[in-house]
Structures are given as structure tokens and as C-alpha cells.
């Protein structure tokens, strides 16, 4: 049994079928890349793993450690170790980043029956982690993502991931909107979090990100299902040949 098992998943969004019998296994400690053309269902997979409303699972299941998470609310999934780094992180006016991080971490710990982190321990944790990601104290004081640049928002996502220490991290097009320098900082932050105790799903349209976050396996998604799986060389092949061939296969 793999750590994450997505079994024959069918998902509708507003009456439109997006995932169409998607099956995927991710081992503990593995970094799996999900590639695919626009509209293949990559972001839908990310949202449905995190438990977003209005993503209607009509068939199939998602098992984490052998247990279904389909009926769990997003916060329960987070407490089980699921983390989604958003493609477009939302701005939360009025909520300071520090407050947000502490509320999230302590809520997860409470759900898991762990004691809350003391203030000094929490501040030390954030300070150490933020330093690696080039997240300034000033950013931590500001409202979550408000007035942040695209790169700052993505770094803030990785900061949250580093603080929350998930077991399954889903990175949804983390490379989108980043220049090469910003991409390197973010990839470096992600690589630092690679661990035998953590699985990652790296969703991307382009091979470029996978030069910096080298995956153990690559899955190709087309028309709502996995149409091919292989090693990291599959990403290079896609870069050379494009997605057109898979569009035909899935049809």
C-alpha cells in the first residue's frame, strides 16, 4: 500500500467532468511530478486533494495511509499532513502573516492532540525558516500576501510548508509567474524539505521547474487521467515532443 492512493477518481466542477478515472500512487518520501497540458485536470487534482468545496467526487477514492480522506474538511486533511501550495496564493487583508502562521500551526497541533508551541519557540522557528527563504521580518508583520510580489507570495507558500511540516505537499504550478532567480530560491526551499518522511506532488506545465526540483517519478495527465508514467527523463521527452501525442491517447 502506497502512502497516497488516488483510485479511479471522477470529479465534476459545476457540472463539468474534469477528472475522469484518475489513478495515482505516491510512495512515502517520493517526489512525483504531474505534468500535462492546460485543462488536463492538474489543478483540479490539487484542489480535490486539499478538499476544496464544489469539487464533486462522483466516483473513486483518495486514501492517505490506507484511510479515505474524501469526507474530511480541509482543516482535518491539513492536520493529517496534507498541504497545498497554491498556484495563486490569496490575499488575506487584516490578518498578519505571523498571526496566520501561529493560528494554523497551533490549530493543527490541537487537532492532533499535541501541545501548542510556546511563543519563543514559535518565533525562533519562523525566524530560522524565513531566513532561508529570504522572507523578511517586515513581510511577516504584513497582512498575508497583501502587497506581496508574485515571488514573495510563492516564498510565503513555501515558508508555510516549512513551518507546518506536512507529510504530503502538493505544489500547484509553483513556477508560474517566477523569473529564474525567484524560481531558484523557491526550488531551494522545496529541496530543503525533501525527506524520507514526506511525499511531494509537483504539478507543472513546464519541464523547467524539474531541473531544480528533480522528481523521482513523472506522471503525465491528459483529459483527467494519468496516461503515462516514467522516470525523470519523461519530462525531457515531453519538453522535446510536446503534449500533442497524449491528447490523442486519452481521446
Amino acid at each position, binding site marked *: 500500500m502506497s502512502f497516497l492512493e488516488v483510485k479511479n477518481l471522477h470529479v465534476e466542477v459545476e457540472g463539468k467532468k474534469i477528472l475522469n478515472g484518475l489513478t495515482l500512487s505516491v510512495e512515502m518520501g517520493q517526489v512525483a511530478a504531474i505534468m500535462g497540458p492546460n485543462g488536463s485536470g492538474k489543478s483540479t487534482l490539487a484542489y480535490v486533494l*486539499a478538499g476544496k468545496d464544489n469539487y464533486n467526487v462522483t466516483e473513486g477514492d483518495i486514501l492517505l495511509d490506507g484511510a479515505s480522506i474524501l469526507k474530511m474538511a480541509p482543516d482535518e486533511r*491539513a*492536520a493529517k499532513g496534507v498541504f497545498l501550495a497554491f498556484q495563486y496564493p490569496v490575499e488575506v487583508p487584516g490578518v498578519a502573516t505571523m498571526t496566520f502562521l501561529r*493560528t494554523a500551526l497551533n490549530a493543527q497541533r490541537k487537532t492532533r492532540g499535541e501541545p501548542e508551541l510556546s511563543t519563543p519557540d514559535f518565533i525562533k522557528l519562523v525566524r530560522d525558516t524565513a531566513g532561508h527563504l529570504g522572507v523578511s521580518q517586515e513581510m511577516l508583520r504584513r497582512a498575508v500576501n497583501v502587497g506581496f510580489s508574485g515571488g514573495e507570495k510563492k516564498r510565503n507558500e513555501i515558508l508555510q510548508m516549512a513551518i507546518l511540516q506536512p507529510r504530503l505537499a502538493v505544489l500547484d504550478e509553483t513556477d508560474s509567474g517566477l523569473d529564474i532567480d525567484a524560481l531558484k530560491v523557491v526550488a531551494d526551499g522545496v529541496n530543503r524539505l525533501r525527506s524520507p518522511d514526506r511525499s511531494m506532488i509537483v504539478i507543472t506545465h513546464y519541464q523547467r521547474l524539474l531541473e531544480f526540483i528533480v522528481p523521482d517519478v513523472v506522471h503525465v495527465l491528459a483529459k483527467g487521467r494519468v496516461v503515462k508514467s516514467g522516470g525523470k527523463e519523461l519530462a525531457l521527452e515531453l519538453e522535446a515532443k510536446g503534449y500533442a501525442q497524449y491528447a490523442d491517447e486519452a481521446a
Partner: protein
Amino acid sequence: MNVEVRPTKTPAEQALSASYAAARDRLPGQGAVAALREDAFRRFDARGLPHRRVEEWKYTDLRALMRDSYPLATPPDAAAKLRAKNAGTVLGGLDCRRLVFVDGTFAPELSDLVPEPGLAIGSMADALAKGDPLVATHVGKTIATEDIGVALNTALMGDGAVIRISAGAEPKRPIHLVFAAGSDTPSSAFIRSLIVVEKGAKVTIIESHDSGESQVNTALELVAADETQIDYCKITQGRALHVSSLLASVGARAKFNSFAFTSDAQLVRNQNFIRFAGEGTKAAIRGASLLRGSEHVDTTLLIEHAAAHCESREQFKTVLDGQSHGVFQGKIVVQPHAQKTDAKMMTRALLLSDEAEADNKPELEIFADDVVCGHGATAGALDPGLKFYLMSRGIHAKEAEALLIQAFIGETIEEIAHAGIRDALMIAALKWLGARG
């Protein structure tokens, strides 16, 4: 032939007329004051309580909402004063000069009357009775209005505060007017206050009302001379009708900031008549209301830019739960000679329930041609995208909602300059959220 059709008087209208008839001879003030009362009463008598066909009261139909008018409050006895002793605690341990009014009557023995240079404090009832020149000069003259809420107040005004801050004076502590309920039977109080701030003076004024089951009609005339700095905050709570009128005239190069915080209040009309009479004044008129159950809170602004080069910011936020009803009417009038006026008004309503209702009516009336004026209004539910983002980080649904509501309301509260008031109101907002469960 013209026949004026007048509906039968409602019980509340009859009771108000009876109260006036019974009390007119013992209400404080003779001569000019009595004439002022009589004139105001006639206005009420001719038109009755405002109702939905009176544009300014369209969303707060007082004739329908006010089923009865309680008897006029009597001066508080010892027991009433004891009950009122700890009122105004929403501000916690904030170091203020407390002036306490029980059922509308000044209670000097509960008040802090330690003398301070440049600060004169008195009771409106005394001032009216004595024919105090300050009162004679200003009462009923700060803002011209035909409003019936104000007329009723003028007709029946009993007591209140009369405060004068001399030119250049800066009272050390905020002045806190504490209006408390003491009587164990519901009554109605008609409170009239006058605050005159002379040139260059700086003052922070807090007015808090916790009127329990009693009806309150309160009016504050605020006369701010040139180069004054005024921070004014009104906190309103109570289980019965509360009609409040701020009548403010602000001079040149002044700084005027007001904030209205309303929570746990059943039926409130907070009307603000503010006139910028001198050039170069900067003003921020803000507020936050938290509503639940069947509460009804109406904020009505009539802001008049009567002089050039003034800047005003109006920002109001309302959170509505249950079957509550929030009303915001904001009218900014820019007079022909008030060139270079810069006015921006924003009102936002956050609806937490399908049954809550928010009515927003912003209006601009601009007669000058070189101005920057704008307004915006929104009403909506919590953003599900924001809620999902917070929940995906492990924050429980209720906590995520609370955090977002706190952020929504906090945006205005954070603008309050006085740290102690800001913190106290944030705590009050959190308490309200906590009670939401």
C-alpha cells in the same frame, strides 16, 4: 380644495405629546429655551414620527418600529446610581476622565471633576436653568436641521454635558461621557450635550451608551473652532430604541476624527450632521457595527463641505448575522465655493446569514467644479476562497470565519489613533465574535 390627510397618531406619538405636555413647565430653561422647545415640539406635532416615505428615514421607519414611548426618566435614586456605577466598562481600565450620567441625569458624585486648566465641565440641566451664555449661544444653532429626531430631542432635552475647552488647551486624559441605565423600570431619556472646543485645543472625547431596556434620544452639539484636533468615539449598546444625533461644526485647518462602534444594540439610529465650515480641515468619519438576532442599526451621514480645501474620509463597516438589518446612508454635499474638496466614502457590509439585510445608500451632491469625490459600497458574504485558504492550513471553519470577520472589522478599528480605545474596541469585537460560537 386641499385637505391634508393626517393619519391617526400612533401610541408612541401620543405618548411623546403627553410627555411634553406634562413636563413642559418643569423642563429646564425659560424664555428663549422654552421657545426653542415649543418650536421643536410643533415641528414634531405637525409631522409625527418619521416613516418610510420620509426619504431620510426610508430604511428606519420609526413610526412603525417605535411601538411606544416610555415615561420620561426621573432623577436617579441611590439604588439607580449604584446600578450604574460600573457602566462604560467596555473600555476596561482605560485612564479617562469619567463623567457619569444615570438615566440621562448628571451624577457628579460618580464623576471625575478634578479641576484641570482650560477645561470647564457642567450639567446641561443647570446650564439651561441658569441661562448659561455658552448654551444660549450654541444650543440649537450648531447645525440647521428639520430632522424630527433632533426636534424631539430639543423639545424634551433634560440633562447632558456642557464642556468647554479653552483655546490652546489639551486635556491630559480622554473625556469619557458615560451614559448608563440605572432605573429598574424602562424609561426614556432625552440627553443633550454641548462641547465647545476653542481655537487650537486638542481633545479626545468618548461617549458610551449602555441604556439597558430604556429608550434614549441623545444629541451632541460639537463646536470645533479653527486649528482644533478632535478625536471622538461613540460606543452604543442597549436593548431599546436609541436615536442619536451628532451635530458638528468644524472650523478651518482642524483635524476631526470620529468613530462609531455599535454592538449588542437592538434598534439604533446614529445620525451625523457634520459641517466643514473652514478651509483646510482633514476629517475621518468611521465606524464599525456588529449586528445579530433582530437588531437594526442605521448609520446616516450628512456631511457638508461648506469651505474649500477640506479632505474627508468616510469609512463604515457592518457585520450582520441572524435576521439583523443594517442601514448606511451617506450623503456628501459639496457647496459651490468648496473647491478642491477631496472626499471619499466607502461602506462595506459583511453578511453572515442569508436572512440578514444590508441597505447601502451613498449619495454625492456636488455644486463645485474642481473637486475629487468618490464613493463605494459593497455587500457580500465571506469569501469562500479566503476561507478555503485558511482551512487548508489547518484552521477550523469557525476559527477561519472569526479570523476573516476580525480582519474585516479590524481594518477600520485599526485606524483609531488612540491605542487604548483601539485595543478596547478590538477586544469588544472579539468578544462579540466569541459569543457567535
